[in-house]
């Protein structure tokens, strides 16, 4: 690990515009610092700035939730309101990492976690994300865990997290504070596509602090999180699907789907979701929306399997959310 200076922030304003890298749970940053993939000169410890409350939120009725950036993943997953009204969020958090890591990992840090591309972790490899302009060894390399949607010739990495996939489907918003004030960015637009600047994972600007994530009131739909991985626990997603689907009188009235493990950000496609509205929940409807979401999907060799896997996982999640038996369908 490279040498660095350490300072403790006492308040959020100490952390805004501070000269240095914020450290929250440290479960991603320290891992990367040990490997010298991240080499900050200065760490600002935000573990004592507060922002660790979960409170009612929302215009007037308070049916939403405001989650402080320093709320630990374990506390968020176990919060009674989250378990009752946003079970998708609980399940996505609990599907990630381990009990030990969730006790440390924070809401802000989880959003900001970096890719698990093996070449990003290998200092001897070419990687535009780690070292802009050097190339991308994943393109013609081992790319089993890489993107099938929204990738570029510069980077095919995925955002690896689970929590943000659930938050994207739930239309959550990230509250960001910088020197210029506060701004709100939907979780679905918080992570960027790689384009020709894959070194930038998110729209967060230097010096900005994530203060909170806000959840709008629950939609009343059935919420499902399905994560497919190489081992049953303590592994990142190959593909995951978050679904929030409402059915009334035999027809779907609203659907929100998000995919994880397939792109540089949690993948949402509201136009495709809209194809479900007004249709009876059946295998044909689910296949149609899955095909629409995956119409631009492209594999890179090792990860070709993710396209049919994503299709099946979408169909399975929709079946679970609507209580439909699709075993005989396409």
């Amino acid at each position: 690990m490279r040498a660095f200076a350490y300072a403790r922030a006492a308040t959020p304003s100490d952390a805004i515009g501070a000269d240095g890298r914020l450290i929250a749970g440290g479960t991603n940053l320290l891992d990367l610092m040990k490997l010298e993939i991240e080499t900050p000169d200065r760490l600002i410890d935000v573990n004592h700035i507060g922002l660790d409350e979960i409170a009612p939120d929302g215009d007037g009725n308070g049916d939403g939730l405001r989650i402080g950036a320093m709320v630990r993943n374990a506390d968020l997953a176990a919060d009674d309101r989250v378990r009752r009204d946003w079970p998708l969020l609980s399940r996505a958090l609990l599907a990630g990492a381990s009990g030990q890591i969730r006790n440390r990992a924070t809401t802000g840090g989880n959003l900001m976690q970096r890719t698990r591309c093996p070449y990003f972790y290998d200092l001897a490899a070419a990687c535009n994300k780690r070292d802009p302009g050097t190339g991308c060894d994943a393109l013609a390399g081992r790319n089993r865990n890489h993107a099938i949607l929204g990738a570029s010739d510069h980077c095919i990495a995925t955002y690896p997290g689970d929590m943000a996939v659930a938050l994207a489907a739930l239309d959550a918003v990230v509250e960001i504070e910088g020197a210029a004030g506060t701004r709100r960015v939907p979780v679905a637009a918080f992570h960027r596509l790689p384009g020709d600047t894959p070194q930038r994972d998110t729209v967060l600007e230097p010096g900005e602090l994530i203060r909170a994530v806000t959840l709008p009131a629950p939609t009343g739909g059935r919420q499902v999180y399905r994560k497919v991985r190489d081992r049953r626990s303590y592994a990142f997603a190959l593909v995951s699907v978050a679904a929030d689907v409402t059915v009334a009188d035999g027809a779907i009235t609203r659907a929100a789907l998000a995919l994880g493990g397939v792109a540089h950000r949690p993948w949402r496609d509201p136009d495709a979701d809209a194809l479900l509205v007004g249709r009876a929940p059946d295998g044909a409807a689910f296949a149609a929306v899955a095909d629409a979401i995956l119409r631009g999907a492209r594999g890179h060799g090792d990860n070709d399997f993710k396209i049919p896997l994503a299709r099946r996982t979408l169909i399975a999640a929709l079946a679970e959310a609507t209580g439909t038996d699709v075993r005989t369908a396409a």
Partner: protein
Amino acid sequence: MPAPTDHPITLTVNGTVETLVLADPRVSLLDALRQRLGLTGTKKGCDHGQCGACTVIVNGRRINSCLSLAVMHDGDAITTIEGLGAPGALAPLQAAFLHHDGFQCGYCTPGQIMSATAMLEELRAGWPSVVSDDLTAPALSDDEIRERMSGNLCRCAAYPNIVAAIRAVADAAAPAEDAA
């Protein structure tokens, strides 16, 4: 490179107040416990949060001590395997691991036992896991134990006996009226 500054920190380790001066903030909580305080019961497996051998309990919660800087724990209360029990006065989980042969080489064992200690508290507090059918009322099962202990790997694959040991302690602690 930043000039080194001394960071004095105070940790309460197994009930004893310890003051350390860290000349370099790079030291992990794990290395501080093992190298500075001589508490070598806590093990280093991967040093990257992937194996759980370094699990300790900080302010009541299990964490990976390898993925935390000692300097971030100024003021915290830490329990290591040395603080759980002692020869002749073993904690229930320590005794159960012996009784059920919950180890072979023993390298992962301190981490397993620290993790299980805190995990049973989490279960008692009603925390759900991803295998809980009902998120609001998780019930103890071997599947729950396996999932909740997935952050602790065992290269010797003593898993069945580890689950049996934890199960025995959980069942013994469960109040009889509570069938759920």
